[in-house]
């Protein structure tokens, strides 16, 4: 990205005007995207539209799930009332912390896997990351109940070794949910990061070294910026499903680890209040979008000095 800034303004003028395509050709080409559009419309736009529509309605009675003959923002007021709002805050905490922990574990691990690990072991190591995925999500999560149980073997081990004085007390807390989501979503972070680091080829790192950069400097200035797309993909792949997860929270969180996904599921499955459930779902979507936007804005601003410095070093005729 640093090289672009040095010559971009010059080349703009020399570029020949783009060859114009006759209009009649544009139609059929756009048609190539038709299956994708149809898919998106049927399975994304329409459902989200419906959720949006339901969220302005209300629940008419015990055997009705929603009615829209009277539209209002009342459901949003309900969804954002202090009782429910607290759950959105908790969800955000678990989502952000969980994603950061996944990132902190995955960056060194994926880097090691892509760069340091021996070639012949790489396949096996990758398989070891993937294989737990073959077991049902729910079963893997319930497995943690046994590990984290106050009278389970792990608790016994900690007490026997003197690490703990009393039985382990994390089941049915937000910490247990955090452990569960990190475990469940870690592969989704490792894989894109592995691919990203794998694509930062050796000659680039060697060149960096030849030009006098140390290991750390090479990692920060060369490897990490080139792996950025993979990092972003990993963050999104983990953060978005994690925010909507309710299985992990149900199994490990009990009453204390309540997450927004559970509230939404409760509205649809038990309370049969589709209007309130939809409003909560919309609030959850907005929470994810806004928090992601803020995170990227912060990251962009924070990396400003780094980018400015890069431009100065490579672009100035010193």
């Amino acid at each position, binding site marked *: 990205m640093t090289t672009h800034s040095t010559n971009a303004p010059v080349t703009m003028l020399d570029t020949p005007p783009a060859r114009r395509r006759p209009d009649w050709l544009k139609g059929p080409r756009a048609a190539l995207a038709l299956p994708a559009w149809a898919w998106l419309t049927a399975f994304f736009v329409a459902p989200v539209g419906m959720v949006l529509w339901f969220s302005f309605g209300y629940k008419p009675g015990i055997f009705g799930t929603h009615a829209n003959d009277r539209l209002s923002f009342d459901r949003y007021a309900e969804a954002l009332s202090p009782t429910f709002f607290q759950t959105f805050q908790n969800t955000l905490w678990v989502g952000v912390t969980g994603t950061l922990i996944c990132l902190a574990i995955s960056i060194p691990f994926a880097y090691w896997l892509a760069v340091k690990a021996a070639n012949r072991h790489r396949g096996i190591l990758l398989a070891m990351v993937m294989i737990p995925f073959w077991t049902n999500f729910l079963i893997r999560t319930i497995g943690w*109940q046994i590990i984290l149980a106050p009278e389970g073997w792990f608790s016994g081990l900690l007490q026997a070794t003197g690490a703990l004085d009393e039985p382990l007390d994390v089941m049915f807390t937000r910490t247990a949910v955090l452990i569960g989501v990190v475990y469940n979503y870690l592969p989704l972070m490792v894989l894109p990061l592995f691919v990203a680091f794998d694509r930062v080829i050796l000659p680039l790192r060697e060149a960096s070294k030849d030009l006098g950069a140390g290991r750390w400097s090479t990692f920060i200035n060369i490897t990490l910026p080139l792996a950025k797309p993979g990092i972003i993909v990993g963050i999104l792949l983990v953060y978005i499903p994690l925010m909507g997860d309710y299985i992990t929270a149900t199994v490990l969180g009990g009453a204390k680890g309540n997450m927004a996904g559970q509230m939404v599921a*409760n509205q649809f499955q*038990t309370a049969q209040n589709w209007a309130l459930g939809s409003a909560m779902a919309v609030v959850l979507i907005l929470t994810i979008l806004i928090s992601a936007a803020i995170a990227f804005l912060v990251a962009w601003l924070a990396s400003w000095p780094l980018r400015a410095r890069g431009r100065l070093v490579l672009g100035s005729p010193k």
Partner: protein
Amino acid sequence: MSHEQPVRILASSAASRMIAAQYNRRRFLSFAAAAAGAGLLAACSSPDGSTAPRATGAALEDKLTIYTWGDYDDPDVLAQFTADLGPAVTLDSFNSNEEMISKLVAAKGTSGYDIVVPTGQFIPQMVENGLLAKFNHDLIPNLKNVDPVFLGRDWDPNNDYSVVKAWGTTGFVYDKTKITRELKTWKDFIDAAMNEASGDVSLLDDPAELTGLYFWANGIDWTTTDAAHLDAAEDFLVNTLASHVAAFDSYPGGVAIPQSQHALMQAWNGDARIGILESADPDRWQWVLGNPATELWADNWAIAEGAPHPEAAHAFINHVLDPEVSLAELDYIGYHTGVAGIEDAAREAGLEMLDLVFFTPEQLDMMHTGEVNDAQQRAVEIWDKMKAAAGA
């Protein structure tokens, strides 16, 4: 919009058209809503009038799907049914009547469930809303085995749609190694929950059981629709009790009791019995029947409208009403099955912990059946808020 009418236009179709006209401008969204809501819409329409039983005694289908409460049938009984009669049984479970009804409402006729197990008081409205199919009594000759006391209850006077599956009550279980004083009443339960067992309590994941807990403890009729009582219940449950709750678990007998996850657990009697029997150290657990008042619930076998395997469903219900099969069920689930003479048979067979299954007349006097009334929706809201507040 007009497609959505059945949801609430049972009263007046003329009014519905006017309402529909008003919202024509929202055509696109309405269309989207209507398109995907199609299944639901059908679900909400009134029964189609086809009251004739669909099962005629033809050959049994090769499958049977039962949607029931958790851990509610002896696996051996199910296996025996498949071995004897053929249909392979698939089980799916729910936590509350509301959850089961919401699934049937959302997919009437397409839920794929053959047998459902609603609690008595929910049956009249389920019939009214076309969720249940009529029995063909000719295919259930074992109805004769049911104790007449449990036939013709007021929710289904002729047993057209349902027959008793099991009945039981609500109480709690506590860990004597963690709670050293003796707990006897719902008031004691609440007191322990807010003191020595704080953060170590589980409650049933069922709206009526939560409001019930408050009403039973405070001497209020648990079928009350009085707004002041409901407000008081909400205030106590959401603002006071919720922060002490560790889990909402309808089946602590499954995992929580055997693994000693909590010190104090609200539980149904049969589930408590399963848990205590499964526990490595049964003596540490104490069962207490809800006192001074508690619930009397009766769950019923019923066939879902649109059941894909009606013949097998009838055959299964007939099968479990056999006295011997019923005794095996009782031994496993720990609930009175309503079959005549079952209590004597159970005592004769020397089954364990029968004090959690059969009750004295004095105990029966403390139990009261629930109602589905105007407070129903409010109870669901309270349940909802309490769960959110517990996580705060």
